[in-house]
């Protein structure tokens, strides 16, 4: 996989996070959301069966997303059977951003530290 393309909704949520001024760019926000999903929704998330709703979001080169390869190594360590860590990354990002988006809808924009709890 050369590019990671988020869903339209996930991309919009990532952009809203960037608009708070607390995230450098969409990639940082998306990685944060990936970690958020792993921390809070690991059991419920099945990367094999999860389907990204669409590819309407922006395209991000994996070299930019994971310049040191640590993300792929992490996902392989967490999901040893995967041969497509970046597809898992994409799914986790979209899933995580969607969860954050729902929280924003319900409670308003939370602080980043509140998302770290």
């Amino acid at each position, binding site marked *: 996989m050369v590019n990671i393309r988020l869903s339209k909704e996930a991309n919009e949520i990532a952009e809203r996070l960037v608009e708070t*001024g*607390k*995230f*450098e760019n969409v990639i940082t926000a998306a990685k944060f959301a990936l970690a958020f999903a792993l921390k809070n929704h690991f059991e419920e998330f099945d990367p094999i069966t999860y389907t990204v709703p669409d590819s309407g979001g922006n395209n991000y080169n994996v070299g930019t997303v994971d310049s040191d390869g640590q993300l792929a190594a992490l996902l392989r*360590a967490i999901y040893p059977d995967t041969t497509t860590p970046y597809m898992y990354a994409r799914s986790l990002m979209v899933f995580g951003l969607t969860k954050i988006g729902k929280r924003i809808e319900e409670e308003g924009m939370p*602080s*980043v*530290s509140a998302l*770290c709890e």
Partner: protein
Amino acid sequence: MLQFTSLTVENFGPFKGSQTIDFTSEDGVTFIWGNNGRGKTTLLNIFRYALFGRFQNRRGADVDLAGMSNIEGRADGHYDFKVVLRMLNDGKRYELTRQYVVRAGIGVPSKNDDYEQKVYLKEDGSILPVEARDHILNLIMPQEVSRFFLFDGELLQEYEELLLEDTNVGETIKSSIEKILGVPVLTNGALDTHAASEDYKKEKTRIAQSNAQTQKIASHMVALEAEKKEHSEEFQRLSDELTGELEKRNKLEDESQQSEHVRSLLKSMETLESDIKEKKDRREEIITQIVAATKDAWRGLISSRVEILLVEIQTKLKYLEDKDNSQKIALHFLEDMQKAVDNKHCQLCDQGIDDGYIEKLRKRINDASTEFSGLTVDEKLQLQSLRMRKATLDAMKSSSKKEILELLESQLDSLNVQIDDSSRQHKAVREELERHGDIEELSKDTQVSIKALAQCLKKIDNLKEGCQQEKDKIKEVENALTTLEEKLNRASTDSDMIEAKRKVDLCEQINDIFERGIASYRDKLKMDVEKDATELFLQISNDPDYISLKINENYGLEMLHVTGAIVPLRSAGFEHVVALSLIGALHKNAPLRGPIIMDSPFGRLDPTHKSNITKTLPKMSEQIVLLAYTHEIDEQQARETLGMALKKEYRLTRYSSFYTEIEAQMN
């Protein structure tokens, strides 16, 4: 004695149309009642305008004429305005008319130049020529003494300046007091005799110059006289300039006070802008720190998950490694056992093994080989994978950014609130400033004002120094002249010189008599003023421990306590009482007699003082006109207190915001 008989105002200020106040020809008090904004102060200023041709606002600045005419009148197309003041003075009837009419060709006036002023003074029905008009007006009411006839009760605290040394206001008031008391008649006489004396001295010097005995001394004296004249002229020039600068300073200080509020707003705005900038810079710093923290926050966020996975991996690893280790240990024992079977000899106990036991050992070796077979291929692969996963996950362990983000976000929120707050305040200050004018212009004007005042103060210091230097030089020259004069007198022997000396001596003696007379007159005047002011004061004051007033060199009045001590730091109320006592005493001792017109006469006085002043009014002057707001004093009580002394009452009645009607009240 001057007495006003009526005042007619046409289309002036709030007074629409033509309205007349009739004053009685009898001695007594007229009350004109009116609430704030109804035109009381305008009426006072109308008297000033009628007598002196100037109209000033509360701050003492000249006003724009186009705005003087009545607003409703202007809407009806009437832009002219007029006052007619009718007076009696020393048996003669005067009618003074001052009016501003719009110049021909001007439709709607917008500036002072669009008006032309017309002034007429009739004496017993005949219009006087201009010079006679001005002369008569200056005689019956000189502007320099108008402060004792037309004044605002709320501004009486200026008389406190008489108690201070070397104040400009104090000097001005003192000069006015001496003028009303007639002192200038004498001082002018002294000046005239002094001038005559100087003329005779010059004549004497001229005679001495033509005499061989005294020529040298006389020439030297002529040179010194010329030098003295030069220094005197320079001193006069510097004094005049100093007077101008002192007036300028007062004006700038007044403007500064008025613009105090604007300056304060500008300063607030500046402070707020600086504060907002500082906070915004700090906010940017914090956001930069937050962005740096969120860049790696994902690592800290997954740490808990990593820990859980590591525990699982560790468990599996242990199982496989234990299994692997067990096989390695078993292999070692199995080798020894196989050797024992092969050699039919146990190395450990160094004994032979019989055949029956060998079979058992062979079976044992087979069973153990099965039991400790070690890791399968899959298990070996799994072990390798688990080790790699563990290494990766160990490397991913990272501390959470939660705490640092919490702190930074809290600081950010707090800063945002402060910035919003300051921005709101800044907006409010800006809006208020914009009501005063363009902010940049105001700022520039303020800077210019501050600079102008600083320059003016510096110039005043320089001029004072210059004046003192000139005075010192004049004194030096005068001393030299005195020495030469004595030398000249000793050297003079001819009859012309002796005659010239006699004339000079005579003039100087006359001058000396004048000076002593003036000093004696001043002392007597001060005593009389002190006595009369004390009498009035004791009738007004409600404090029995204040037993008299004591006059100083400048006609300032101190209050004396029964213990003999001067009352320090007297209240605004007593300042008012003392000032009224002084004014009353001046009226009693002045050769110039006239009415008193007082705006807000009761100021901040308590009811007792108000009542006492009301009782004392008829003693202050023959004709008193009071402009008071309703409830400034109880109207009914005032009527009862004054009794027959109350001659007329008027009320300034609001017909609309821009139209006041002067209504006579039936007594």
